[in-house]
C-alpha cells in the first residue's frame, strides 16, 4: 500500500519524484466518490457487455454467469453504463446513508 | 601583440584571410584569434574581419580599434570607408589597387607606410576569379612578417584542397610583387 502523501517527508521522495512501484494508482479507492450505485436487472440484461466496454474506469466486471456488476472499490457511480445500456437494464440507486 | 583588420565585401573571403593567418600563427606555436565582425552574412556588403597574433595568450575579447595592419581586399572600398581609421602611426595599410602607391597615398592622405599590390590582376591570372583573399595574405606578409610565409602553406592546402596550388601561386606572387612606400 502506497503511503499517503501526508506521511511523506521531502527526504522520502525518490530522485526526480519517480514513482517506482508502478501501477500503484490501483490502490486508490475511487469507490468512495460514489453517491449513486448502478444496479443490473438480470431479467432485462442480454449480457452484451456494452456497459463493460464503456465504463471509463474499467470498474465493471463479468460474473461467472456472464452477467455484469460494478467493482465497488473503484466504481465512482458516474452512470455512463446506464446511459449506454442497450436494454435499459441498469438503474442508479442511492447509496445508503 | 599584432592586431590586423581586414576590409572586404561579403563573399570575398576577408574572414577566411583572418582565419588562415591565425591558423598559420597557431601552427607556429604562437597564440592567435580570428573573428568576423559578427552578424548576418550579406554578400557584397562591406565587412571587416579581425586577427590578433601574440607570443602570449590573448585575453582581449573586443573588436580592434587601433590596428597595426589594415588589409583592403577590394579597392572599391577605398572611396567608401575610412579604411585607415585608428591605424597605428607605425602601422601599415596594405591594399589591393591598380594605381601606384604614390597615387593612393595622396588620395587617402595617410602618413603611415603603404603597401600596394594589383591583387585583382594576380587573382584573375592565377585563379581565374577576382577573389583576392589568399593573394592579399602574400602582400600582408611582405609588409610585415607576422608569420613565416611557409606557415601559411598548410592552412591553404587544408582549406582549398585541389585548388590549393593556384592559391599558393597567387599568394607567393603577391608576396614577391608587393610595393612598399614609407
Amino acid at each position: 500500500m502506497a503511503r499517503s502523501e501526508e506521511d511523506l517527508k521531502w527526504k522520502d521522495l525518490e530522485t526526480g519524484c519517480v514513482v517506482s512501484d508502478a501501477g500503484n494508482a490501483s490502490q486508490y479507492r475511487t469507490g468512495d466518490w460514489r453517491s449513486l450505485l448502478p444496479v443490473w436487472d438480470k431479467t432485462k440484461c442480454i449480457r452484451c457487455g456494452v456497459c463493460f466496454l464503456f465504463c471509463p474506469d474499467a470498474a465493471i466486471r463479468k460474473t461467472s454467469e456472464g452477467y455484469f456488476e460494478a467493482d465497488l472499490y473503484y466504481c465512482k457511480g458516474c452512470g455512463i453504463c446506464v446511459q449506454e445500456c442497450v436494454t435499459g437494464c441498469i438503474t442508479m440507486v442511492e447509496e445508503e446513508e | 601583440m599584432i592586431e590586423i583588420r581586414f576590409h572586404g565585401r561579403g563573399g570575398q573571403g576577408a574572414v577566411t584571410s583572418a582565419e588562415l593567418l591565425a591558423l598559420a600563427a597557431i601552427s607556429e606555436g604562437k597564440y592567435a584569434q580570428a573573428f568576423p565582425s559578427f552578424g548576418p552574412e550579406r554578400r557584397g556588403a562591406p565587412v571587416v574581419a579581425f586577427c590578433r597574433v601574440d607570443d602570449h595568450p590573448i585575453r582581449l575579447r573586443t573588436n580592434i580599434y587601433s590596428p597595426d595592419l589594415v588589409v583592403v581586399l577590394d579597392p572599391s572600398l577605398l572611396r567608401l570607408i575610412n579604411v585607415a581609421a585608428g591605424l597605428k602611426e607605425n602601422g601599415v595599410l596594405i591594399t589591393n589597387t591598380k594605381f601606384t602607391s604614390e597615387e593612393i597615398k595622396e588620395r587617402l592622405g595617410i602618413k603611415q607606410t603603404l603597401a600596394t599590390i594589383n591583387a585583382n590582376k594576380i587573382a584573375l591570372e592565377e585563379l581565374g576569379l577576382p577573389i583576392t583573399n589568399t593573394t592579399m595574405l602574400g602582400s600582408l606578409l611582405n609588409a610585415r612578417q607576422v608569420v613565416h610565409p611557409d606557415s601559411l602553406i598548410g592552412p591553404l592546402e587544408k582549406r582549398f584542397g585541389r585548388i590549393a596550388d593556384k592559391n599558393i601561386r597567387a599568394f607567393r606572387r603577391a608576396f614577391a610583387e608587393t610595393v612598399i612606400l614609407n
Partner: protein
Amino acid sequence: MNKKVGIEVSLAAADAIKMANVDLIAAYPITPQTHIVEHLSELVANGELDAEFIPVESEHSALSVCIGSSAAGARTFTCTSSQGLALMNEIVFIAASLRLPIVMILANRSLSGPLSIWNDHTDVMSIRDSGWIQVFTENGQEVFDHVFFAFRVAENPKVSLPVIVNLDGFILTHVIEPIQYWDQEAVDKYLPDFKPVNTLNPDAPVTMGAFAMPGIYTEAKKAQDEALIKSKPEIIKAWKEMGKIIGRNYSPVETNQIKGAETVFLTMGSMGETVSIAVDKLRAQGQKVGQVKIRLWRPFPVEEFRKAVRNVKNIIVIDRALSFGGQGGPVAGEIRSVLYDEENRPLITNFICGLAGRDVTTDNFIDMYEMSLKMAGDKSKEEDYVMYGVRE
C-alpha cells in the same frame, strides 16, 4: 598533452561532444549556436560519431526528445540560444525536476525584441531559476574542457541534474583560437559510462513526471532544491579531478589580483578576459583593483563568494542583462542579497553593459572603475544602476 590546434570554438565544442561519446543529439539550429549543431550532424552523417541525431521541428521538441532519451538511459545533448531557449522554456523546468542529466551548450544571445542575434546574458537569466546547474566559460579552451565536466557532473548519481554550459555567442562561438584537445583516453578515464539513477525499462516499470497535489509539491521542490545545493561539492570534485588530468584548475569563484584589492570587478563569461587587461592597466597606475569571476552561477557558491570578497570595499558588478523595473541586473541583485548579512559588506555599483553585442573595451572598464569610485556609497544618487554607454 596534445599540441594546441587552431580551430573555431564551435567546432571544437562539437568535437568534444563527439569525444564524450554522446548517444543522442536533438537540436534545432539557431544563430549563433548553428556551427556546433551543423558540425555534430556532419560527424554523425560521416559515421565518425555513433549517435542518433534528431533534427527536430522546434526547440520545444528538441528538449522533449532529450527528456525521453535521457529517461531511457542515453547520454543526451542539446544546444540552443536565445529564442530557442525561450521556446524550450516549459521543458527546461521539467528536465530539472525529473533530475535528468541532459547537457546543454547555450550560446548566449539577447532575447527579442528588438530582434537581435548578438551576445548578452538575457537568455540564460530567463531560466535562472529552472533548477539546472549553470556554469560560465571565458574562452574556447574552457568550453572544450567543460563539455566533459558537464556530463561527468550531470550523470554523477549523487547529482543527476541537467547542466548548462554558457558561452558567449559570436565572441566565443565564432572565434578561431588555439585549443588543446584531450586524449581520448583521458576523456574516457574522466567520464565513466552513464549509469542512470532511474530509467524507463519495461522490465522494471516506473512512473516519471507524475502530478503532485498541494500536499506533496512543496516536499518535491525542497528535494529538488537540496539536490541542486548538494551538487556543489560534487562539482568541485569534478573540477579537481579534471585539474589532475589536464593541469587547468577551475573553481566556483575565481579571482585575479585580489590581494590588496579594495575594488573588484565582478563578471561572468568572456568579458572576464578583457576586464583582466583593464585590471592590469589600473594596477600599473597604482590602483588597488582586482577581479572576481563567477564560474558557477547555479548552485550559487555563497560561501566561496563571501570569502573571495571578504576584504573588498567596493564591487563593480557587470550585468549583461536587465531586470526591468527591478534594481538593475540579475547578478547585482544576487550579490546584494548574498552580502546583505555580512558584517563589513562592500558597496556595490552595478553597470549594465554589453547588451546585444555592443563592444565593451578595456578603456570602458577603466571608465566604469572611475565612475564607481565616485558613485560608491553616494546615498544621494538617484539610480541603483547605470546603463553604461547609453546615449541620453
